[in-house]
């Protein structure tokens, strides 16, 4: 089947390693997302898999066939890797009609004419774009172009589909529609999809597995829920989520942790830490509670600003020089700017990180 394996793959541009010692296994039929800020090497990784770039070290296997091996300089050209690729700008050939664009790959593969027409018809009706067949790309809207680009890759029946930020040029509404569409298409075709994005919502909603990258190094490779719930380090923790995770310094003291503005019961994940050691604790804005009553899990803070966002508000508070952001339910919110109030932590959900290595504890 269409399993993809990367072994110790490194790609350098000059002295800069765009992808650094990357090992990865993508299960057949997976919807695998590569997530990270721009310049993290996610697009390069995809291009290495496609064969549009050649790695300097390592080995790449698609469907158990070696398509790249630095040891014996094997490089299988892109066209022979059995992949399809949707580019960020769609890369529709402007001088060809929709029909010609879609049939190009089939013609290259020397598929019979009748079969070509049948496949074209199927893919057009599946993507509901039959009426566009004789138009030129310049006569199409962004969403339509997106569908054509998709159709062009689907029509060949490729078992591996690479998508490079395919939705980034669409407006917000269309993007949500396409997400649903992509998920359905993935389920229908059963193809292995590798999806490059910097939008974590896309990655979280679409993927069966995802990897987060930073400066060419993979940070975490897991199911989306796990990446969200158990970020492997501070970078992933802060990168994931609507608003960055709140990070506070904490000092372990017996069964409690000293944090700015008070102390909390010691989190379970900090079990391995010695008494008196410094760690970082993290809590997502949604995991904090804003209230007027104090208990052992809360600290006293002052409200600095409020950003209403419909159902929720982002409330920014300060305590002893530190700042926290809390997502508060707008219907039950009672505090206002300048008020003194309390923030309550959920010690079962606290994320703990090593102060030096920023790695997750526990």
């Amino acid at each position, binding site marked *: 089947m269409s399993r993809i394996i990367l072994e110790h793959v490194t790609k350098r541009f000059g002295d800069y390693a765009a992808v650094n010692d990357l090992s990865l296994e993508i299960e057949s039929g997976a919807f695998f997302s590569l997530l990270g800020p721009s310049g993290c090497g996610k697009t390069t990784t995809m291009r290495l898999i496609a064969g549009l770039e050649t790695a300097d070290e390592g080995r790449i296997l698609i469907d158990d066939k070696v398509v790249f091996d630095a040891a014996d*300089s094997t*490089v299988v050209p*892109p066209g022979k890797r059995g992949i399809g690729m949707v580019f960020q700008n769609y890369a529709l*050939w*402007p001088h060809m009609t929709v029909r010609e664009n879609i049939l190009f790959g089939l013609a*290259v*593969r020397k598929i019979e004419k009748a079969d070509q027409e049948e496949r074209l018809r199927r893919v057009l009706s599946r993507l509901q774009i039959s009426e566009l067949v004789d138009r030129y790309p310049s006569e199409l809207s962004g969403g339509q172009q997106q569908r054509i680009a998709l159709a062009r890759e689907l029509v060949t029946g490729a078992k591996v589909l690479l998508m490079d930020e395919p939705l980034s040029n669409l407006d917000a509404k269309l993007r949500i529609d396409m997400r649903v569409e992509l998920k359905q298409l993935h389920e229908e075709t059963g193809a292995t999809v590798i999806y490059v994005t910097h939008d974590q919502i896309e990655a979280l909603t679409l993927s069966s597995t995802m990897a987060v990258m930073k400066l060419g190094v993979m940070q975490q490779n897991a199911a989306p829920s796990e990446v969200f719930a158990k970020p492997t380090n501070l970078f992933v923790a802060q990168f994931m989520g609507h608003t960055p995770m709140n990070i506070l310094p904490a000092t372990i003291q017996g069964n409690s942790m000293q944090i700015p503005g008070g102390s909390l019961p010691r989190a379970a994940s900090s079990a391995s830490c010695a008494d008196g050691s410094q760690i970082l604790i993290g809590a997502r804005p949604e995991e904090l509670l804003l209230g007027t009553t104090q208990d052992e899990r809360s600290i006293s803070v002052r409200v600095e600003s409020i950003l209403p966002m419909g159902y929720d508000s982002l409330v920014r508070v300060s305590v002893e020089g530190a700042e926290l952001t809390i997502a508060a339910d707008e219907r039950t919110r009672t505090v206002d700017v300048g008020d003194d109030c309390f923030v309550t932590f959920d010690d079962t959900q606290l994320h703990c990180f090593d102060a030096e290595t920023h790695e997750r504890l526990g």
Partner: protein
Amino acid sequence: MNLSMRRVRNRLSTFAHSPQNWLAWIFLLVFGYLIIVPVGNMIWSTFHIQSGDARRAGGAVGDFTMFYWERVFASGQLSARLLYEPLMNTLFVSITYTIIAMIIGLSLAWLMVKTDMPFKRFTGFCAIVPYIVPSWTLALAWLTVFGNSQVGIGAAGVVETLLGRPTPNWLAYGPIPIISVLAINFFAFAYLLGAAALATVDASLEEAALIHGASNRKVIRKITMPILLPAIGSAAILTFASGLGTFGVPAFLGLPVRYNVLATSLYQSAAIGRYGEAFVFTMVLVTISASAIILNSKLIGKRKQFTTMEGKGSRQRVLKLGKWRKPVGFLVAGVMAIVTFMPIIFLVLQTFQFHLGQYSLDNFTLAYWIGERDGLRGILVDPRVRAAAVNTLWLGISVGLGTAFVGILIGYSVSRNRGRPIAKVVEQMSFIPYVIPGIAFGAIFLSMFAQPRGPIPVLYGTMTIIFIACLVNRLPFASRMGISAMMQVGRSLEESAEVHGASFPRRITRIMFPLTKRGFMGGFILSFVSTVKDINLVILLVTPQTMVLAALTFGYIELGRRQFADAIGVVIIVLVLGCTLIAQWLTKTNPLQGFGGGNS
């Protein structure tokens, strides 16, 4: 099979599948052979006694000598006459005409692209004609208008006939006419480059400045101009370099009053067989051009001229001229029409004059077209002219196609290897011919391929050598055209075809070529035009079987039968204009706009 064997095999197979790589290597080898080696050979020649010089250089032919360099650089008064005066004249003429051509060309480009001036089609057509017309015909036309009876053959020009007294010498001959003619010849070059560059300035950039309260004038000065600066700079450099090696114009307008530029010094030395000196002059010319180009890249090289326009066109902000719209349109179109058609009209008139410069009915003759004079048959009834016309067409078309095709391939390998040293080397090597004057090029190629070289048989006397020489001479243009066309085609358009398994030839023919068609067409036509009208390059390479029209012309001029030359000049003008129009009609593209390449 062991690992290292496998590695070699896989490397080779990978190499074979990376056309951008092997193309770059092929270009490196071919350029090395067709550019570096001949230039090296030429430099070598300047240090060794050439045939016929044994007597004056004091030694045997082939001996090492500093004679040529000493003679040109360090022989007191003689060097002043040979080198320093022509050098100063060259710099003065070239810089002046470049400035004038840039001012006219860029103003016109701005009016055409950025304003709502009327008659753009007509004006645009007129503007390109003086560039298509061979520059030496413009020089001849200048003489028919401003020539005086005091100098040269003493044929009075139109102005003298009308005024009834001789036009002053400074108006008929010397730097002012040379500068004027070259400026007329080259402003279209600046116009084309400027218009292409202007078209890339998106309206939003200017609008952003307008919102900040900048005036129109300020927007031009502070936004449009700085963005265009690299294009303007390189247009100026190219204009400057193109004219450095022009021989025809200074020969007709300067030599009668002994106003020498380097190109005429070089030519005169070469024409009397003094190749040692001629090559030293060539080196001087090459050095000037090369310094100018290096200076250019130092000054504005840091800002990249190319903006990738992934399939999307830019929006133009058009300045409304209001009540000035019509007057400006009329004025510009009128001036362009005069500059364009007057020289051609006078040229045509002259082909009917039995004696030059006599404007009377009894001086009317058809001898130069369908009759006979001095044993020379009229050009329409001379089978040799007909044969030369066939050769010319063959050469023009094949060089045009070759230039466009090679240009696309160079553009492909350079743009796909961007950032790698080999891309830079290929690009720079392809630029070298720009700094070698055509006449020197011809001589270099003659010495290179008048004998078998490895697998290459003797090419002298064949159309092949003329073809190769013209092609190599056009390389700088080809590579500029190809690179800019390729840079504007998004890389992903090719990659998506590659992912589908399309082979390199298929990608070129189905994707890259259609997308760069307009650049290709523009390259083809401009190359065709310059090949058809070129004299300097081919004059040493032609044989009776491979005669071309322009070289025939030169023979007529040497014989002092300017009317035959005029007639052929008219034929060439008709030919190049006709071909331009036909190609335009065939491809439904405007080759002048297509000059910048692009697919917007």
